[in-house]
């Protein structure tokens, strides 16, 4: 890893987060902080999806296009199950379902294709994506479903004495961010301090060496896909409770792609930081860059949120292909 990486990360964050709004003359600091927080909240969710993505890529070298579909599938499962049982039970059953799914994917897709070209595996995950999208609707239905986390959706005014007019914070967003942070922290501990975590790190470091000392690769793959499934489930539940569970969720999850490009494919830290940068960046761009475009070029000025992340990722591909925290050479599988 480049020793200047954190420095670059800070610069990028400052650029999208500070310079842009200041340059466009945002006057109210309270409003600015509000946008920043909103961006961070969205970013947390991007981070979660990207995290699942990075985990799988690191451990099995598979570019898992289906991560977004897994988010939708998990959210659908929880939403529909919650109609029949308490939410916590639905989530538990959801976790079981995601673990089973991981097992099936390993059995039916990864194992037969082991040692194939990466592109073959990628195509396979593309297949899994469409299968999950469709199969999810077959099993759970295709309406818009709600997940009620039982929290107030009313925004709360905070820091009234610090900023004029205070800042509007969505309580649900706040809890979501804490849940996401706890999940990431828990995963970090799991990877660092348990034998299975250690074995997973070993597999990620060197497949063949891991195999030769008797670490069962197949089992590790199931575990890592299951973990990615659980992460997808958490992302899906949070997101679903916010926007409703619907097909577009799988599209939103595609944002994970620019996130991992930004953060680096093999880096868990990169996924988290990348998610936050994209989240904040696109909110900032939407709010502060939009009006500038309107004023300067007489454009309509909308929809920046939809393309900003991809443009940023594109820039990164040109300047720093391995991403902020990635390894220089990506030659897995």
């Amino acid at each position, binding site marked *: 890893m480049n020793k200047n990486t954190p420095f670059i990360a800070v610069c990028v964050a400052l650029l999208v987060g500070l310079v842009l709004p200041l340059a466009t003359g945002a006057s109210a600091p309270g409003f600015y902080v509000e946008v920043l927080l909103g961006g961070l909240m969205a970013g947390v969710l991007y981070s979660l999806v990207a995290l699942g993505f990075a985990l799988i890529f690191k451990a099995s070298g598979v570019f898992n296009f289906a991560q977004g579909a897994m988010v939708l599938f998990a959210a659908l499962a929880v939403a529909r199950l919650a109609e029949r049982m308490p939410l916590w039970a639905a989530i538990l059953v959801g976790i079981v379902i995601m673990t089973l799914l991981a097992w099936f994917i390993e059995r039916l897709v990864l194992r037969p294709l082991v040692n194939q070209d990466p592109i073959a595996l990628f195509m396979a995950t593309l297949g899994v994506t469409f299968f999950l999208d469709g199969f999810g609707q077959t099993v759970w239905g295709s309406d818009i479903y709600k997940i009620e986390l039982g929290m107030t959706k009313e925004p709360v005014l905070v820091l009234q004495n610090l900023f004029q007019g205070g800042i509007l914070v969505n309580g649900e967003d706040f809890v979501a961010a804490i849940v996401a942070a706890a999940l990431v922290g828990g995963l970090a501990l*799991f990877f660092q*301090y*348990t*034998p*299975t*975590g*250690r*074995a997973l*790190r*070993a597999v990620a*470091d*060197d497949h*063949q*060496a*891991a*195999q*030769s*000392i*008797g*670490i*069962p690769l197949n089992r590790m793959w199931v*575990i890592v896909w299951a973990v990615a499934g659980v992460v997808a489930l958490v992302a899906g539940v949070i997101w679903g409770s916010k926007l409703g569970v619907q097909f577009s969720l799988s599209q939103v999850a595609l944002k994970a792609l620019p996130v991992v490009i930004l953060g680096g494919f093999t880096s868990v830290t990169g996924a988290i930081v990348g998610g936050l940068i994209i989240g904040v960046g696109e909110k900032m761009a939407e709010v502060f860059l939009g009006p500038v475009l309107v004023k300067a070029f007489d454009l309509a000025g909308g929809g920046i949120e939809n393309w900003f992340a991809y443009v940023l990722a594109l820039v990164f591909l040109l300047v720093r292909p391995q991403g902020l925290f990635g390894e220089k050479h990506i030659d897995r599988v």
Partner: protein
Amino acid sequence: MSAMENDRAGRIGGQILAVEGVSLAFGGVKALSDVSFDVREHEVRAIIGPNGAGKSSMLNVINGVYHPQKGTIRYQGREYHHMDPHEVAVSGIARTFQSLALFKGMSVLDNIMTGRNLRMRSNILLQALRIGPALREENEHREVVERIIDFLEIQAYRKTPVGRLPYGLQKRVDLARALAMEPKILLLDEPMAGMNIEEKQDMCRFILDVNDEFGTTIVLIEHDMSVVMDISDRVVVLDYGRKIGDGTPDEVRGNQAVIDAYLGVSH
């Protein structure tokens, strides 16, 4: 110290592993043809030969990486046509690698702990919560690993990422990880390759100590004859995939075919 040598001879037991009539070919290229030899319990058994003699292929056959076209492997009385790497590891054969296969980004301690992976019994949920049996188990494994760390004198590097260690030490970590599996047979693939004299001497000492202290049977391949002769009980010599000599170091040294093979490739 003749008393010691007598004692060593007395420790060597019956046959633990036998390779019988093994032939291996890649396409038309014959890597091994009709090779047979056996390994006895507690001995240090060397396989030597010039480069390209088929030493590594032999190790890979025992290790289950290659499947021979002909021949059988008898291990602890059971006969196998070929073995599977995972199965081999489970059944008590560990190996080190000539081109190191360590987890470069992980610490020395973590690397060696992965060697205990096969012996971990507690399930993933208990591990995750770090409670009861899982914690106790982890501590037991740690103790075994600490003994090995102490034994191989790498205490100073527990927390160092392996990738940052010099080559000689990486080799030692590789040996430590293999030892952590508490193997019955330890396969060493050119353990002294790329080392300076001092490192070679250290490694020889460690190999003998391992053999002595843990009673581990050791099969090692090496192309540097001089090193091997000092530490081996018996030596197999391969040349162009055939066995051309087998016996004690002294017998092998006097074997005309062996002398020719080594002179032929100007060693």
